[in-house]
């Protein structure tokens, strides 16, 4: 393990942390993934709203698209035929991805709200203008970081030299990032921010589906308010999760040469998973002991 590999590893971890945070905030501004069904239901249970509602499939496929598209554009520009510098190629690729994101977001917002016409849900053009650009900006950062990680893994002049082509690596990281954003950060928005009128940490009771907060501190709540809230915890924690995954996964193949010490790398991976599981279990038990059952909890209900 040389100093260059260690430095690249640190850079990848840092890029992944930024990508995770921006990906989660991007999905929060647009209420993508699981908080989306609550926004979708809100109008149906009588709460029309001015919240951005984009459903570009789940987060994993949509982020796979942005990452793969940015990577394809970057690898075309970087090829011998065009010979553009890697940094600028990735920047242009991310721009293309952000534009695709903006287009898909706009049509989702318009389509979903239009399909709630019988519940008097309007399509607000000012929401579209102000939020789409915010979403695109976050998507740009995400795509740039993911493609940069993939480039570090595949570039012929850097030590890792992964055998897969750049777009395929970016595609895979895009899916991983979307899955982590969906499972880690969305809880903060979907279960807490949308249901702020219920006790903190109470989870989502099925009977409260769609009963989301649609009013802000002053006036009506906008999705940019939601990004502001999620930037305090949900976004950073997603970044930390994705950063750790990229860092730890590459760390084990950096300290052990995959060609000659493959089994050590695999064993280290298994050890990390076991340790994290034990840590999670301890955390769960301690939280339950410290904070106890919710005030209204009255024991298990017999079937």
């Amino acid at each position: 393990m040389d100093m260059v590999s260690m430095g690249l590893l640190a850079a990848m971890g840092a890029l992944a942390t930024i990508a995770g945070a921006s990906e989660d905030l991007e999905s929060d501004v647009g209420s993508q993934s699981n908080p989306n069904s609550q926004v979708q239901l809100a109008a149906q249970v009588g709460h029309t709203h001015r919240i951005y509602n984009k459903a570009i499939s789940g987060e994993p496929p949509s982020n796979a698209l942005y990452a793969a598209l940015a990577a394809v554009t970057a690898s075309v520009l970087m090829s011998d035929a065009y010979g553009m510098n890697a940094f600028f190629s990735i920047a242009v690729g991310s721009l293309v991805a952000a534009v695709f994101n903006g287009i898909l977001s706009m049509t989702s917002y318009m389509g979903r709200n239009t399909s709630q016409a019988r519940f008097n849900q309007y399509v607000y053009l000012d929401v579209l203008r102000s939020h789409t650009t915010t979403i695109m900006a976050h998507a740009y950062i995400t795509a740039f970081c993911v493609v940069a990680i993939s480039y570090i893994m595949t570039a012929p002049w850097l030590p890792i030299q992964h055998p897969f082509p750049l777009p395929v690596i970016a595609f895979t990281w895009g899916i991983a990032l979307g899955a982590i954003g969906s499972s880690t950060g969305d809880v903060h928005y979907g279960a807490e921010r949308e249901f702020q009128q219920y006790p903190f940490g109470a989870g989502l009771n099925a009977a409260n589906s769609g009963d989301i907060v649609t009013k802000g501190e002053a006036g009506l709540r906008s999705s940019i308010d939601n990004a502001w809230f999620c930037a305090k915890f949900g976004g950073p924690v997603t970044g930390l999760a994705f950063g750790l995954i990229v860092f730890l996964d590459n760390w084990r193949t950096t300290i052990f040469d995959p060609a000659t010490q493959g089994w050590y790398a695999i064993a280290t991976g298994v050890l990390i998973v076991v340790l994290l599981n034990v840590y999670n279990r301890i955390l769960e038990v301690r939280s339950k002991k410290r904070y106890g059952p919710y005030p209204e909890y009255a024991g298990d209900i017999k079937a």
Partner: protein
Amino acid sequence: MSVAAGGGESKIDKTKLTMYGLGGGILGIYLAHVLNMITGTGYFSFLAGLGAIAAIVMGADAVRRVCAYGIGTGVPSIGMMAMGMGLVAAWFGLAVAGIAGPIIGIAIAMGFGYFVGMLANKIIKMNIPVMEEVLMSLGGAGAVVIIALSVVVSGQIGYEDMLNDVVLTGFIAVVFIAGALAILQPFNANLGPDETQDRTLVHAVSTGGLAMFAAGIGSLITVGVGGAVLTMLIAAAIWLKAFLWYFKLVKRDSAGVVGTGLLAEGGL
């Protein structure tokens, strides 16, 4: 599963859509191949892109039909499944059948879809009446889209060349995911009790334009600048036309498209 996935009545018949989707797709693929071969250029690759759009419209309608049974969060999954079936069958067809590869691939994908649908209904007992027929359409649409977008990138049908231009360059990633999103996004974005078929299908044309544009970017280093730029320009024009048409339909169908304002009656 989201409540009230919805889906209004179908004005355009599914048989007609399937016919146009498969026919248009196969015609586009072969025309692009033959005209590129005859002229020795890559200028006609865009024809395969047009074929892909036809198949995307057919696929989007199939997603719409099956998802009207209340599959909400399953919309992306079913799109991925379509492309998965299409990908395996399409590349198998191309590998074994040479110039007849696309037709063999599409036929296998449709058989594959029918079989998966039968498993879903008979073994898992989902009991969705249209499952077999819809998965057959989706498998076919997936295969056409994969082959057509791959032909946009490589400019011709030839297993070796397609492998070099599409798979080894990694462009298959964007062919797969842009094609999948183009099929699943139209219904997913318009899901709700007041969804209408024409709005969803016009949206499918616009996402098809985007997928064609994405494949066009890849073709910049495979078929050459002329053919790639032509593909991208035509894709952008199709997208723009479809997007404006879609916006018109949004204005027709929605409770109101307003510049700004408070909530409608009953919201406050």
